[in-house]
């Protein structure tokens, strides 16, 4: 067991604690960035002027009429930017564009004494456009050769030969939709300028350091002139990793120019029409199976819809390509990946970060092919699971692969899967208009940032003379319970009751150069950094205490606020007394902690290496019931077994698993981003730009029965206190819902029906799938089609 992962006696980690802010949440006392406005004197309010074109050149911009609107204080345009007119890190996102690249693109911003004045001022700004041709769909971009960034290729074995020799070969094309984050709190920033011209920006951001850097480069000032603070976010889900920077920069620019605080808060429609979303993908695939139903080859071309700028599309694509195997051993793999450039919002990070998109491809392959192979989909998936000593297509050993089978068999057992499958069969035989189905899908998800440099973190821990402890770290709280876990880590390391430790808001002047709170890595990285800082202090105090106890510092133990020898016997010393002694002995009572994840290496060009510290595993079984008249369905029961290592905080982890599952189910079944793809005047407009038209899961979508358990004996040797990351992996357990819907739709047809199911699988999509199954021909005809698909000529040139 490593020193990092070993747990002491009486550990506070592992206790099922509620969220550290729960009492503030439920009473409305928890403060979010926009709640600070009423506490800030004389703040100005910002409103954007948004483009009504998907792609156009701005030929004229007249801001003067805005100044005629009472209460308008300032209109911000490109001329006001003292530094670099750019909101991103790739320098392809002008903050004030001369060419609008998507419908809703902000051209300039109006600052008003009230939000109403700013709104009316924005309406008064006169803009003339020269409309330009636009690309709205991925197939349009592919046809036009419109790509951005660097395409990547992943290769193992000999796909061409394997496909030509495979017993069964299938190919398909599959396009699936993105997803709106719909964090309940929209983007918001509040910027102030101090007496020395320094900026203090409060921002709802997952990446305060990068928000700071973008503000600095827009203002043309060094980073030390900008401090960014994030109290907490009302949800992030990746949507606040890159996207907040430009909005914070606008607020900072406005504050600099007017000398007054500037609040920029997007309303829901502005947020949905301006900020990036999960990438939709277009995919083409060919898959080969042997006679035992084992995958022998997968050839896939993934085209991510990047939107108008590069943003995080490259790493999203890399993660998609690294997850195209999901949890399955595929000896021969070839994946070509590329990023389409379209006239849409700049698609960005979203929980799973490409992983879900890559994994959806292989689950689609298995779901489509199982009936064509004459195999049960559950059996097909299980027989293809990774086994110990297998390696991924990019060459990383799949450590703890046996946990996949462990999770699978536990779900089968505790979920009473076999009994229920019999019941479902009986139900379907007697219900011509209603069908049920149960599907099981696995998850294997790599933990660490693909980009090795991001896998570092810092912390700053203070012990005050009275023994109270204040911790700062670089991670942000977006509801995932990071701060709760960090308090538990600090209390565990210092051997203190939880209430002795307080956590301060995330600020760039406390811990610099932080990575985004993303990639599920928040607890791994920041927890290890906090542990490191706490250990430095503890070791110093151990010397002080050892002197008083007359024992070696190495034999001093900290537990429940008392410091004793190895035997944990005797009265020992009170923590606060030792702290007081240490102060008087001039022992440093604070420490900066640091952590870098060891053992990572990655060649992004060759797509080879070991980019992940470890894999998180899980298995889900979902049972659905589908109405044959409408395609409407209910999620009757879900059983999950998920591997979170030795949980740092079981109640928090349970919440992440359940919430991730439902969010994933939303992406796959309900949430339906619709862009105007017509040639009409609204081309490129997001048609689902409000809560009334874009539907996320509500109570009616939660599983009627929802059983989640954590895999036991799951110690992770390489991570803080033996835990594993949990933020993203459970989202992909929701593939089970999509596959169950596919199987239920197929049950309306003859045995062996292979169903094409759109994603998201809305009731309408399910209806067309089951309608197709109902009217589909005999199974023999389908197999004929398969034979045609196997013709060697059809395999070339993929």
């Amino acid at each position, binding site marked *: 067991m490593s020193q990092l992962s070993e747990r002491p006696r009486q550990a506070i980690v592992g206790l099922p604690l509620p969220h550290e802010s729960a*009492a503030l949440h439920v009473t409305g006392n928890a403060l979010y960035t926009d709640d600070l406005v009423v506490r800030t004197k004389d703040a100005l309010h910002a409103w954007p002027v948004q483009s009504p074109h998907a792609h156009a050149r701005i030929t004229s911009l007249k801001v003067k009429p805005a100044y005629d609107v009472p209460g308008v204080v300032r209109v911000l345009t490109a001329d006001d930017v003292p530094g670099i007119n750019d909101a991103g890190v790739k320098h392809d996102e002008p903050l004030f564009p001369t060419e609008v690249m998507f419908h809703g693109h902000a051209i300039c911003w109006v600052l008003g004494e009230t939000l109403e004045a700013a709104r009316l001022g924005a309406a008064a700004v006169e803009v003339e456009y020269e409309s330009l041709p636009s690309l709205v769909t991925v197939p349009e971009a592919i046809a036009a050769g419109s790509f951005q960034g660097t395409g990547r290729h992943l290769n193992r074995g000999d796909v061409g030969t394997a496909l030509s020799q495979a017993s069964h070969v299938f190919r398909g094309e599959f396009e699936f939709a993105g997803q709106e984050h719909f964090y309940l709190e929209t983007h918001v920033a509040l910027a102030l300028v101090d007496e020395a011209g320094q900026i203090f920006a409060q921002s709802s951001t997952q990446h305060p350091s990068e928000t700071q850097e973008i503000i600095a480069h827009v203002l043309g000032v060094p980073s030390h002139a900008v401090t960014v603070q994030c109290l907490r976010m009302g949800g992030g889900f990746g949507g606040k990793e890159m996207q907040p920077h430009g909005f914070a920069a606008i607020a900072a620019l406005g504050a600099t120019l007017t000398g007054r605080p500037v609040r920029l808060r997007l309303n829901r429609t502005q947020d949905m029409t301006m900020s990036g979303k999960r990438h939709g993908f277009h995919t083409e695939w060919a898959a080969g199976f042997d006679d035992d139903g084992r995958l022998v080859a997968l050839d896939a071309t993934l085209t991510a819809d990047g939107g108008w700028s590069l943003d995080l599309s490259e790493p999203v694509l890399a993660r998609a390509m690294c997850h195209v195997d999901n949890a399955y051993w595929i000896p021969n793999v070839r994946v070509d990946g590329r990023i389409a450039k379209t006239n849409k919002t700049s698609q960005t990070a979203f929980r799973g970060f490409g992983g879900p998109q890559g994994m959806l491809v292989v689950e689609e392959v298995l779901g489509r092919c199982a009936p064509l192979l004459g195999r049960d989909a559950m059996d097909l998936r299980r027989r293809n699971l990774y086994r110990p000593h297998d390696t991924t297509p990019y060459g990383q050993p799949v450590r703890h692969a046996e946990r996949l089978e462990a999770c699978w068999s536990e779900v089968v057992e505790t979920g009473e899967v076999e009994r229920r499958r019999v019941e479902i069969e009986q139900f379907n035989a007697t219900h011509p208009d209603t069908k049920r189905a149960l599907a099981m899908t696995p998850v294997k998800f790599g933990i660490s940032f693909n980009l090795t440099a991001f896998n570092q973190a810092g912390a700053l821990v203070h012990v005050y003379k009275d023994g109270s402890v204040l911790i700062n770290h670089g991670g942000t709280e977006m509801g995932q319970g990071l701060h709760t876990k960090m308090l538990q880590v600090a209390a565990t390391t210092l051997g203190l009751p939880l209430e002795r430790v307080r956590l301060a808001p995330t600020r760039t002047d406390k811990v610099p150069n932080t990575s985004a709170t993303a990639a599920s890595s928040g607890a791994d990285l920041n927890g290890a950094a906090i542990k490191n800082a706490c250990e430095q202090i503890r070791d110093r105090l151990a010397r002080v205490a050892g002197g008083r106890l007359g024992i070696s510092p190495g034999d001093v133990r900290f537990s429940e606020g008392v410091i004793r020898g190895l035997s944990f016997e005797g009265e020992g010393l009170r923590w606060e007394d030792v702290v007081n002694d240490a102060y008087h002995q001039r022992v440093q009572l604070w420490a900066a902690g640091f952590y870098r994840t060891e053992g990572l290496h990655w060649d992004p060009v060759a797509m080879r290496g070991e980019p992940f510290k470890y894999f998180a595993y899980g298995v889900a079984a979902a049972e659905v019931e589908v109405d044959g*008249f409408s395609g409407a369905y209910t999620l009757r029961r879900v059983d999950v077994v998920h591997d979170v290592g030795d949980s740092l905080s079981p109640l928090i982890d349970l919440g992440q698993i359940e919430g991730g599952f439902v969010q994933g189910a939303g992406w796959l079944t309900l949430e339906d981003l619709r862009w105007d793809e017509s040639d009409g005047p609204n081309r490129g407009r997001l048609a689902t730009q409000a809560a009334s038209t874009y539907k996320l899961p509500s109570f009616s979508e939660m599983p009627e029965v929802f059983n989640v358990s954590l895999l036991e004996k799951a110690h992770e040797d390489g991570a803080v206190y033996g835990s594993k990351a949990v933020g993203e992996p459970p989202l992909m357990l929701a593939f089970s819902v999509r596959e169950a819907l596919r199987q239920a739709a197929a049950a309306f047809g003859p045995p062996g029906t292979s169903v094409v199911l759109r994603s998201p699988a809305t009731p309408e999509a399910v209806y067309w799938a089951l309608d197709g199954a109902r009217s589909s021909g005999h199974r023999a005809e389908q197999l004929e089609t398969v034979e045609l698909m196997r013709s060697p000529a059809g395999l070339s040139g993929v």
Partner: protein
Amino acid sequence: MTTTADHRPVALSAPALKVNGEDTAIGEVAVHTTALDWLRDRGLTGAKEGCAEGECGACSVLVARPGIDTPTEWTAVNACLLPVAALDGQEIVTSEGLGSPASLHPVQEELAVRGGSQCGFCTPGFVCSMAAEYYRSARTAPAAEACDHEHGPNGFDIHALSGNLCRCTGYRPIRDAAYALGTPVADDKFAARRLAPPPPPAPTAMEVAGSEFLRPANLDGVLEVLADRADAQVVAGSTDAGVEVNLRGARPALVVAVDRLAELREFEFGADEVRIGAALTLSEIERLLDGRVPLLAQMFPQFASRLIRNGATIGGNLGTGSPIGDMPPALLALDASLVLVSRRGDRVVPLADYFTGYRQTLKAPDELIRNILVPLPLAPLTAFHKIAKRRFDDISSVAIGYAVEFEDGVIRQARIGLGGVAATPLRARATEEALTGRPWTERTVREAAAVMATEGTPMDDHRASASYRSAMLGQSLLRFYAEHRAPEGVRT
């Protein structure tokens, strides 16, 4: 443009409301100011804006409203849709008023300890919606067999939370918190408050920067304003008007509030008809009917969300003339009529004639919907079908109301109301004709379903394709038949 002094309501005092027990002047704010923005400007930032259109419930607050089981009921509404002026004289409670971190309310306690909050942004809204259900007088532990995943062992109806969205938890811990709630303790001040009358309806007159909000004291006062001012925007629950204000920048010069007028809040279940006051909310109607109109009982839980139904009135729903409401298809099947009132007098208009075009109706600008009349006896076989992406809180792609009568083994009359397939709600006349006079058999229904699939002129939009809408019409009739092949208690 000014209003004449004679119809201007005489406000007894400057506009004010009671917030968490404290009398608070509304003050000099634009008349379109929402209750949410007003609260937040006063530092009560617990209620949040998540969507500004009554879809997410993050802004939910409790209002002391006239009750059915007790004199006052704590009613959860969307503060983002209500103009604060509409709360003049009223009494509200926010999450801050229910409890404090040092002294949590039972609802807050259950949510907190069970992991019911993650990011916490939606939480104050959930707290208020949950508290309203906690204090529902009729909430008692049901028989064990009445409990299911939507009804807890403590009588908690999860539909109470149908208008609240959470993006983090997946809802399970929130449901568990709801089902773990006990009953209020003896000295619970919010429970005690239910036993006293609610604040009486008080006239309101606010004028700020040339815009006016008027709440006349009686129906005559309203009709006078409407007769004088063609531009007056009549508002009841503001669940539709509030969206126009928030999302589309509507800034009416004159808003006239009618939702507390006693003349519009009558309810009578008579021998020949049910008479429903236009200003009754959908929640009130649902409870007053208590299942006596099965078609409506089937519709109510599918209509938007509890938060919306607590604010939205039946008159307001019909007044907007929307082509996709759930109420019109149901009322068309029930052969309902409207009583329109103006200074010129009353007139009764069949609902089937009321809709004249896209958001156009027979109602003149000076007229107000006074009542909705549902004739009795009801048809023996009725149903309401709604096609939507989401079961709770969604706008229908297609909505269908059925009412079928039989005589001597054949269908004597079929009334089918449709929504979402044309510029107005409409009767499926061709389908009705295909059914009338024929036996209730699979063959009849199959042939009629083929006709029904051609009713209306559905379009493609983000909710559904035209072909799906058409298919759903035909499928709906097949489903109706499949569920009622041999209707119980109905002599075919």
